[in-house]
């Protein structure tokens, strides 16, 4: 098997002292930020983008991958020990997990989450090893028109499927596309949307936008609604689980993985739906249905596995097609472009060593998470007691540091504040963040590819549908739009009393 050989070479490159150190740092940092309220893996990777100036791409991506997997894991710890989940993907875990913790079974809840994450991560990464290269091989054959269609599909899917209000999702997307316009037009060399400010000539750095929207926006939003009475944190010892817990957990782990991976791999699948499906399935299949709602271990095992498997699945479109479908993948893609690496189907050919080292390091990071985090759980629980003024002052501090380091000019700090206020407004007015970030990153690529396609067809617009794949993808978009309009109309007629989510 070619893939296995490549993977072995990847392990060879990943198991160097330096890279193992980066993997450890990434996993620990990722778990810490996953546990801490207010920061997530996407923001952390964005803050760490300055290291790409001086660190080998392989090492940097090994660390980013560790942060990504670690963040998922840390999020589940928070939702078990506190009753307010920070990320939408761990909402479901909190339902049974927090009940278990309150009933004195926090150690078992954390253990089943940890083992479930490990198993889902291992299976998911294995599937990634075989699927991603295969998809890339198919995708390399696609020409510009098809690739353009797939990018458009990803943009629309991420915007329309996730979140509660489609209208507000599209508002986020178009604002992101507008930000992407700023700078020099790649084909004619003219400046656009710079308002006579030469400092905007190179465009707005993605680090500044991402850090502002995630970190500054979040810190300002929390500042307005900071909980006055601190929440009760359930103390926990070392996670462990008995034989009976294992017996009840292993099937949910596998079923959760089966739900999570495919949803992560398609654009806009996300983690919300598979975790929900996994929860519902476990409740139906359980031999102890009476425990659901009072702390059933299956209700933690399944959704946690689904959550992590979906995280692994997300890396399939990112590595095979260069399409990010969640915030962390989007920032990792920005880091790739910062290195001058062109993301896309050719990545497996052109950057073979980097990609396989990254995949190997996912296995390593996944294993490190298990061995490091089981003994460290009490420490992570302590981290939740960080005084909030320090936590949010720290987030603001590091966000400013990250933005300042990009170009070493105060102007980036001013941009940071401006987009931070935009991020605050988005949280207040329910405009989702992800479409904006993906719009900023993919917008310029879509425009460039659209215009290049038309250059190649000498300005003939039918060049856009000159490939069968392109036609199929546009048909999928059209069908999706019709389907959504129909279900929207039906739902609108059924209950006019509930909120008009447009």
């Amino acid at each position: 098997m070619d893939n296995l050989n490549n993977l072995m070479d990847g392990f060879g490159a990943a198991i160097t002292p330096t890279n193992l150190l980066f993997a450890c740092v990434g996993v620990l940092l990722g778990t810490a930020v996953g546990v801490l309220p207010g920061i997530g893996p996407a923001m952390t990777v964005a803050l760490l983008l300055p290291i790409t100036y001086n660190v080998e791409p392989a090492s940097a991506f090994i660390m980013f991958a560790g942060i990504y997997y670690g963040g998922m894991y840390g999020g589940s710890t928070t939702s078990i020990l506190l009753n307010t989940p920070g990320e939408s993907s761990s909402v479901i875990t909190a339902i049974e997990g927090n009940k278990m913790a309150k009933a004195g079974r926090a150690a078992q809840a954390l253990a089943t989450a940890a083992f479930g994450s490990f198993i889902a991560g291992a299976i998911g990464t294995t599937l990634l090893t075989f699927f991603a290269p295969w998809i890339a091989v198919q995708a390399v054959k696609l020409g510009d028109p098809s690739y353009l269609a797939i990018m458009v599909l990803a943009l629309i899917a991420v915007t329309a499927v996730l979140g509660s209000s489609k209208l507000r999702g599209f508002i986020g997307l178009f604002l992101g596309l507008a930000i992407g316009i700023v700078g020099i037009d790649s084909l004619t060399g003219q400046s656009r949307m710079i308002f006579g400010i030469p400092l905007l000539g190179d465009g707005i750095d993605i680090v500044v936008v991402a850090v502002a929207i995630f970190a500054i926006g979040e810190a300002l939003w929390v500042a307005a609604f900071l909980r006055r009475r601190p929440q009760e944190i359930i103390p926990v010892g070392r996670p462990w689980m008995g034989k009976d817990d294992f017996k009840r957990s292993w099937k949910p782990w596998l079923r959760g993985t089966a739900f999570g991976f495919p949803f992560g791999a398609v654009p806009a699948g996300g983690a919300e739906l598979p975790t929900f499906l996994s929860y519902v399935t476990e409740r139906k299949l359980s031999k102890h249905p009476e425990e659901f709602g009072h702390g059933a271990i299956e209700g933690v095992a399944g959704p946690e596995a689904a959550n992590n498997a979906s995280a692994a699945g997300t890396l399939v479109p990112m590595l095979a097609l260069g399409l990010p479908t969640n915030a962390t993948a989007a920032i990792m893609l920005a880091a790739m472009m910062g290195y001058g690496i062109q993301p896309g189907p050719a990545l497996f050919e052109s950057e073979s060593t980097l990609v396989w080292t990254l995949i190997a390091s996912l296995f390593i990071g996944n294993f490190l998470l298990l061995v490091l985090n089981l003994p460290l759980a009490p420490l992570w629980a302590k981290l939740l007691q960080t005084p909030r003024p320090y936590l949010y002052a720290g987030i603001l501090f590091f966000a400013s540091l990250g933005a300042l380091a990009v170009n070493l000019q105060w102007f980036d700090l001013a941009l940071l504040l401006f987009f931070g206020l935009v991020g605050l407004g988005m949280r207040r007015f329910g405009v989702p963040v992800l479409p904006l970030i993906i719009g900023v990153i993919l917008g310029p690529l879509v425009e460039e590819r659209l215009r290049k396609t038309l250059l190649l067809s000498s300005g003939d617009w039918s060049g856009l549908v000159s490939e069968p794949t392109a036609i199929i993808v546009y048909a999928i978009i059209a069908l999706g739009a019709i389907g959504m309009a129909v279900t929207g109309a039906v739902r609108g007629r059924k209950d006019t009393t509930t909120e008009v989510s447009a």
Partner: protein
Amino acid sequence: MSDTIQTTTPPTATPERRRDLAQFIVVAFLVVVATLLVVDAAGLRNDFAETDPVGPKVFPWFIAAMLYLTAALLSIAILRGSIPEEEGGEDVDLDQRAEWLTVAKLVGVFVFLIATVDLLGWTIAGALFFAGCSLTLGSRTWLRDLAIGTALSVGSFYAFYVGLGVPLPAGILDGIL
């Protein structure tokens, strides 16, 4: 449907607040951005019109049109009573009254950082920024906050200088650090 799940996020819409007219801020923002796009794109030339029929104008114009459209749709939705789903979080208690004064003070501290970072340098401005933020957010131990801020700013200055080769602004301490 029996397959519904009670999530822990509390309902944000209170019955007495039927319309959220503050959302017209979003509408106004969208219109401003769209108008900027249209005006800016109008001044662009397309030198290769035969082969590049899209040119540099079409994309901004398309985005602007979509922003106008979403602004119009949002206006209708607001008037029909659409309430935004405000974002929750571990430290966010949406049942409390919003303290916009705290936010304004934080913005003030931020403006101070922007104004002084070149003059005072990252070490001093950054330390003051951290202390200012934590004091605004309810900390009362200003001496300790300053100490932590200084440790962070000096530490990050050297970490970036030595570790990454990125010289952050040294300001008035140039030559001493």
